[in-house]
């Protein structure tokens, strides 16, 4: 299922404002790739352009290529809705649907797409997804309770269960732990390590220990100055980035010598 992502010369715009410039990178299947960098440097924007969530914002557009297993996501005949079915996303703040129960939240990807499924199959899928997100044991007795009644960490794992229930090829995570306590963070990091057996994972994080702990490759984004576009400074194996990076800027950032 997991797929390889090749990005070449990607420029990302908000209206006329160039937010991210000239990103070229290859993301290997079944790995976790971390994106780090200061606030406002375009990590999240880049992440959102990988499943065409970027263009949900009015005026936002992209130039360049994002190729997944040979298919250009921004091709003229590609439907963005279809792209998002194959590339799931988990957001910074847990956002379960408030009108739905825990069960319905996990089933939402199928229900909302009006895919018909037998009750038994759906039950099975919900259990599998919740187990996959390490949440099953905590919620199995209250599947019909509202999802918003869970704790923040549980809600975030519920969102992960919801995202993996549609069996995507790639899972994008936009600072998934920044609103969580260390224990929930650990639970989600463990989960990511399990999930990479099945999915390609790209994660944006401000927590460099987290990037070092979970990822195989790391990309460092930076911007030259205020109002300048962000760009990818360095993309390397995580080990190299955190021990002996090629670029001086990367070393300054991870060692804390840079704002």
């Amino acid at each position: 299922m997991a797929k390889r992502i090749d990005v070449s010369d990607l420029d990302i715009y908000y209206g006329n404002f160039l937010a991210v410039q000239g990103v070229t990178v290859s993301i290997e299947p079944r790995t976790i790739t971390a994106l780090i960098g200061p606030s406002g440097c375009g990590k999240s924007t880049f992440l959102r352009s990988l499943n065409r969530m970027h263009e949900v914002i009015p005026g936002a557009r992209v130039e360049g290529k994002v190729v997944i297993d040979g298919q250009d996501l921004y091709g003229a005949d590609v439907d963005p809705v279809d792209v998002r079915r194959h590339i799931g996303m988990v957001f910074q703040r847990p956002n379960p649907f408030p009108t739905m129960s825990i069960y319905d939240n996990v089933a939402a990807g199928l229900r909302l797409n009006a895919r018909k499924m037998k009750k038994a199959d759906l039950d099975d899928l919900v259990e599998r997804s919740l187990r996959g997100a390490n949440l099953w044991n905590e919620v199995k007795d209250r599947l019909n309770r509202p999802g918003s009644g869970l704790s923040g960490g549980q809600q975030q794992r519920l969102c992960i269960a919801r995202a993996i229930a549609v069996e995507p090829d790639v899972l994008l995570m936009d600072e998934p732990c920044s609103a969580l306590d260390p224990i929930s963070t650990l639970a989600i990091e463990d989960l990511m390590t399990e999930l990479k057996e099945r999915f390609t994972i790209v994660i944006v994080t401000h927590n460099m220990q987290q990037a070092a702990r979970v990822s195989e490759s790391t990309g460092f984004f930076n911007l030259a100055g205020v109002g300048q576009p962000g760009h990818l400074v360095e993309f390397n194996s995580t080990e190299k980035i955190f021990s002996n990076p090629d670029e001086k800027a990367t070393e300054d950032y991870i060692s804390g010598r840079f704002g």
Partner: protein
Amino acid sequence: MTATRQEAAPAHGVVEHSRRLARPAPWGLFALGLLLGAALSALTGFSVVLTVVYGVALGTLAVYAVSRAVEGRRTSFDRLVTCIVTSAFALAMVPLVSLVWTVLSRGLKRLDGDFFNSSMLGIVGEGGGAYHAIFGTLVITGITAVISVPIGLLTAIYLVEYGTGRLKRWITFLVDVMTGIPSIVAGLFAYALFALFFGPGIRLGIMGAIALSVLMIPVVVRSSEEVLKLVPTELREASYALGVPKWRTILKVVVPTAIAGLATGVTLAVARVIGETAPLLITVGIINGTNLDPFQGRMATLPVFAYYQLTQPGFPPEFAIDRAWTAALILIILVMALNIVGRLISRFFAPKTGR
């Protein structure tokens, strides 16, 4: 050095203590002011209005002066403002209480089974009722809601989810303009529209519903727009990220999340138009018998019924005037019931957060 510093330190720690009036004291002082006011107005021939005016002024002054002497400047100013704000609130309540009291005391007399069971057909003088007007109002308001809710709701969805740039701004502007249309103009619009096709003098229930729709649509748009804007963008994005198309996201995520607010908004919009008189006066008219077919002839409605009972009471007039008050009372009860329904809806439909 150390010794002098200790002497200078305040007796009770760093926070300054000040004397406070006992809790009932300000009330007592205010009551004293009111008594003085009553005495003052008795000097010039007693009157309630003068008592209240003098009393509130003197009471406020008494509270302020005593508080100033005992509690200091800041607290006394706080008490002064509290007195002024409370008096203003009481003043605002006077017309409301008086209105409810008047309508209740005069309308209760005819609030009987007969009033709900009979129309005005063949009634001269005593008896009669508003059966025809109550159901006429319900029919016309129901049709108004059926016309206005889809148009208003879809407009609001367009404005929040799809609209951009100049078109959106124009629609918002025109909706604002529509909100300000005087109700008689809406009535004249519907009348002129139907007179074009059916000739002058035409009166139909549906005309009234169209006139009321002109008034109701902007209210529905405004309230729905505000409620839809409150749905977090994150929920829309969560849905998009699952590969759900936009229209389905709106239908299955945005609208259900906002349903409580939408229903409340619609209920309040209905309450807003149910008591309109002027447009119905010129589009629907009045009849004495029961006509519930909005496409055939005149209909009776509660506000217009009340208006005619009061302005053309016949002889002896008191029975018709009693009927007018009771019709007004039923109208108030209907509006209040709609408001309560709106609140109940928002309580029952609101997203549950129970653990």
